């Protein structure tokens, strides 16, 4: 059995990834290029934010200090957020948004699939929902990556530029922190490294159809899992935490 401190930290990594990516997607609400896509991105954002609520709630229980989902989502300092850098990257254009989603979901679908075999009942329950949701996150983002990659000269150029920009951030998806390692050993959470081959297969298959090439990454970017974030993170938290910081102790 992993210590509760390890499980807490590993759950926070998972919840922070979902909250921050969900927040990023929610920034498209009312701004997407077409109505269907506006609904789609809002739906994907809801899945991620809803999932993060369940994980934060469980993390709070595991920690045993009385913190609830709101305390964990809104009342921590930037260095205490453990999301990977990929999810905090800006939306930039549609190509980058869809590629970021594909990179993330292509790992999290097999991740939650593996988590169905966790020895922790709450994690199995959360995984049971998430695995189905991640499957259509992969499907939806892959469709767009293919449509844009194998589209017009301009869309293909933007898609390939997004690949060059975002690919260096994918390595951190597989980072195993000490806490994550302890949980994998204890059988409560999956080993990310063991899912790399499946992730690579999914990406390769989509890229082949999208006529994209995987760039050689010389300088993989990481730091988020240690709480070291990029400049964007401060901007996200300023918006995300505004209400709670301005009116401490507020209730809905």
């Amino acid at each position: 059995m992993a210590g509760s401190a390890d499980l807490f930290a590993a759950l926070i990594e998972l919840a922070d990834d979902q909250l921050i990516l969900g927040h990023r997607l929610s920034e498209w609400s009312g701004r997407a290029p077409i109505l269907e896509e506006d609904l789609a991105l809002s739906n994907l954002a809801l899945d991620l934010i809803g999932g993060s609520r369940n994980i934060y709630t469980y993390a709070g229980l595991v920690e045993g200090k009385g913190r609830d989902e709101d305390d964990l989502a809104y009342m921590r300092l930037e260095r205490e957020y453990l999301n990977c850098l990929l999810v905090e990257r800006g939306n930039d254009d549609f190509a980058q948004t869809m590629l970021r989603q594909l990179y993330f979901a292509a790992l999290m679908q097999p991740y939650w699939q593996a988590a169905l075999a966790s020895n922790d009942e709450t994690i199995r329950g959360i995984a049971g929902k998430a695995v189905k949701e991640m499957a259509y996150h992969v499907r939806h983002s892959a469709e767009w990556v293919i449509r844009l990659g194998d589209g017009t000269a301009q869309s293909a150029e933007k898609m390939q530029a997004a690949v060059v920009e975002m690919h260096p951030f994918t390595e951190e998806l597989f980072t195993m922190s000490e806490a994550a390692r302890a949980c994998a050993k204890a059988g409560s959470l999956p080993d990310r490294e063991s899912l790399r081959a499946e992730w690579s297969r999914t990406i390769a298959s989509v890229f082949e159809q999208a006529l994209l090439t995987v760039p050689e990454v010389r300088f993989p970017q990481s730091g988020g899992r240690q709480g070291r974030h990029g400049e964007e993170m401060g901007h996200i938290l300023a918006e995300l935490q505004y209400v709670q910081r301005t009116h401490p102790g507020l209730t809905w």
Partner: protein
Amino acid sequence: MVSLATNDRAALAWEVAASVPDPEVPCVTVADLGILRDVRFEGDVAVARVTPTYSGCPATLAIELAIETALLEAGFQARTERVFSPAWTTDWITEEGREKLRAYGIAPPVSGSNSIRALFGETVVACPKCGSDDTEKLSEFGSTACKAQYRCIACREPFDYFKCI
């Protein structure tokens, strides 16, 4: 305060909770959808257990409040409990629920669909208006998390499809 024999009390509480309509798809009840798992008594308190459809379903809280309110109005002390495991699947929608959805103009989920496994697998969805299989998907995402938008080629009617998960 309701005072009934224990079995009657449990049956009545179930009856009350089960008749609560889904706030987003009001043609079906929470029991039709299979999200109301059971109602048990802890002492004098009726505890209704609810499983959310989607992780981020914004209706979950509204559903829990509606069930609690219905039980309170029927004279029970009540609370709800959220259970995640096992995860809800559209297979839990009852036969009656499927019929109600169809009658309402929403195509019910296709049982045993391959939509989880296949990356681009398409499911054949019959039009709830004319029954034709000649339909096309307009968008995998609709007005609520649980629905997709389709169009019938035969009768030209657009309709919602209750996605299979």
